[in-house]
């Protein structure tokens, strides 16, 4: 029987009980698997001032997903979900592409690449569109009172249509060089996208630790009515939370379109919503709302990206990629599940195994 308080038990148990234990363990295992197949896996080299290496690569590739997952975390904590992020990624990418312009011009026989509008406007425009999409979701959830999954399903269904409407069904190629810095540039040796993730992470951390946002979001997630009665501006907070999720999807759309140098209304951010929800869940935040972990979501995003990387690099045929992902999802979820935790923690013979 263990009913004793955490202080009374050994540090291993405290460790095992920590909500981040499993996500971190999963990530470590994946990294070690990679190391086993590729001796240079942890190797990072410096090529003309840029750091190269598998780890950097994973971090870089994971950054759009990490952004979306960070945006999704507070939404899920308020007992919501935002399934529209993939579509919002496409919309924001389309906006950016349309604003920057899909045409190359030939001046005196030399190609020059010009942007329709100054770059900052294009970026702001795309972010604004993302934010608006998020606010639309938030308004439906908080003020109309729709269930989050439906409210965001609307945009999920319509969003790719809207993105294609913006681009008139074309895949718009972007030729404007400075724009590529967002998704493929390096700053101080590291991919620029990492700085964006870090900045967002720090802002979020500040808001959840140094303000009451974390408390309010958690309270709303657990009992919206009671939170409203306690005087929390539940609706305004929900609106902001969805708006933020949209904004993050917009940012991810920018990074993605800058990375592939085009905007494809049909395929940009495809299945991103599922990956993001998965990342948040793998990070230990329950879809039922309440307590959440930002670090967990980041780790979740890394797990997903590492997994993709692993399947490519250890020579699993890409067809099997999805199967591997599914199996990992099942295993992590089952191990994380309440009944399983109980089983593992209760049976002393198993404790050695989980440590």
């Amino acid at each position: 029987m263990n009913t004793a308080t955490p202080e009374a038990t050994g540090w291993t148990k405290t460790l095992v009980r920590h909500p981040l234990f499993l996500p971190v363990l999963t990530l470590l295992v994946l990294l070690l698997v990679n190391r086993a197949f590729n001796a240079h896996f942890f190797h990072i080299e410096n090529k003309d001032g840029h750091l190269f290496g598998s780890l950097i690569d994973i971090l870089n590739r994971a950054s759009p997903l990490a952004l979306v997952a960070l945006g999704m975390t507070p939404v899920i904590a308020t007992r919501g979900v935002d399934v529209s992020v993939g579509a919002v990624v496409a919309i924001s990418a389309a906006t950016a592409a349309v604003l920057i312009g899909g045409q190359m011009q030939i001046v005196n026989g030399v190609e020059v690449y010009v942007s329709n509008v100054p770059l900052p406007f294009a970026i702001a425009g795309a972010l604004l569109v993302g934010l608006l999409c998020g606010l639309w979701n938030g308004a439906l959830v908080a003020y109309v009172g729709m269930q989050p999954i439906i409210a965001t399903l609307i945009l999920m269904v319509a969003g790719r249509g809207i993105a294609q409407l913006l681009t008139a069904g074309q895949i718009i190629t972007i030729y404007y060089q400075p724009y590529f810095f967002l998704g493929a540039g390096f700053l101080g040796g590291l991919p620029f996208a990492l700085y964006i993730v870090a900045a967002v992470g720090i802002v979020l951390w500040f808001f959840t630790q140094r303000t009451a946002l974390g408390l309010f979001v958690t309270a709303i997630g657990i009992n919206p009515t009671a939170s409203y009665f306690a005087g929390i501006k539940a609706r305004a907070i929900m609106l902001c939370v969805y708006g933020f999720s949209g904004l993050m999807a917009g940012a991810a759309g920018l990074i993605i379109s800058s990375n592939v140098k085009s905007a494809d209304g049909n395929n940009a951010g495809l299945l991103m919503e599922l990956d993001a929800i998965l990342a948040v869940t793998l990070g230990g935040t329950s879809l039922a709302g309440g307590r959440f972990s930002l670090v967990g979501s980041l780790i979740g995003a890394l797990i997903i990206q590492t997994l993709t990387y692993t399947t490519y690099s250890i020579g699993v045929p890409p067809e099997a990629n999805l199967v591997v992902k599914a199996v990992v999802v099942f295993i992590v979820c089952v191990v994380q599940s309440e009944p399983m935790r109980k089983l593992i923690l209760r049976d002393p013979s198993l404790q050695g195994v989980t440590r």
Partner: protein
Amino acid sequence: ADKLVLGFAQVGAESEWRTANTESIKSSAKEAGVDLKFSDAQQKQENQIKAIRSYIAQKVDVIAFSPVVESGWEPVLREAKAAKIPVILTDRAIKVSDDSLYTAFIGSDFLEEGRRGGRWLEDHYKGAQGPINIAELQGTVGSAPAIDRHNGLIEVIKSDDRFKIIASQSGDFTRAGGKQVMEAMLKSYGKQIQVVYSHNDDMAIGAIQAIEEAGLKPGKDIVIVSFDATKGGFQAMMAGKMNVSVECSPLLGPQLMETAKLVAAGKSVPKRIVTKETVFPMETAAAAFPSRKY
């Protein structure tokens, strides 16, 4: 008399090539005075089947479509035949047991395109030492261009044992797909790859990005052979990042309208109508670019 009504079921808008194709069909229909019923299947075969069935219900004069995949068309084409509506395939062929299910097929000869790509490679590596390692970026699995461009290449290089295809994967004809697959290939094979044989320009452009990001020079360290000769492809060639693009013209609108009118009038047309195409190596790219329409 009434205008000719043509129902056209397009695959989708998955690449620049496809949008040029759509544009050509729409504008030539306008010019030819054809009432065009256009639908876009978003890359889903069931949507195409639905659209064709709806054209049958609408009693259009001619149905044309560009099949997503080769198989599975028999039941609905039989319905069209029963309704006595002639069917024209464009761009991609289908597999049916009964050839009379469609009247004509207008489109590129992908097999020939594949051969052209192969021949260009042989030319390029004349006198060079083997082995020459090729990484192939395939189109959508099961689609005719993917199958034929692959087979065309094999046909040419099988007699030459210097050439070896060391990796072959589908990038789904998309830019993102090409980039992702190329990254994976570079990870597993690295500098062994000498040639990238990409089934279309979009994937090739994705691959070029991946190669650059890996610190290599596309067009020099790795030779890039591609298909379609789209604007994007031309730009890559002019920038010296792509070596050759085998043309595959999407501008089959006029030919389609012409054929449709003949078919509707009950005249006989050749079963196979091949579009006129050529090969653009990077050296000729800059000269040809201004006259390109797609």
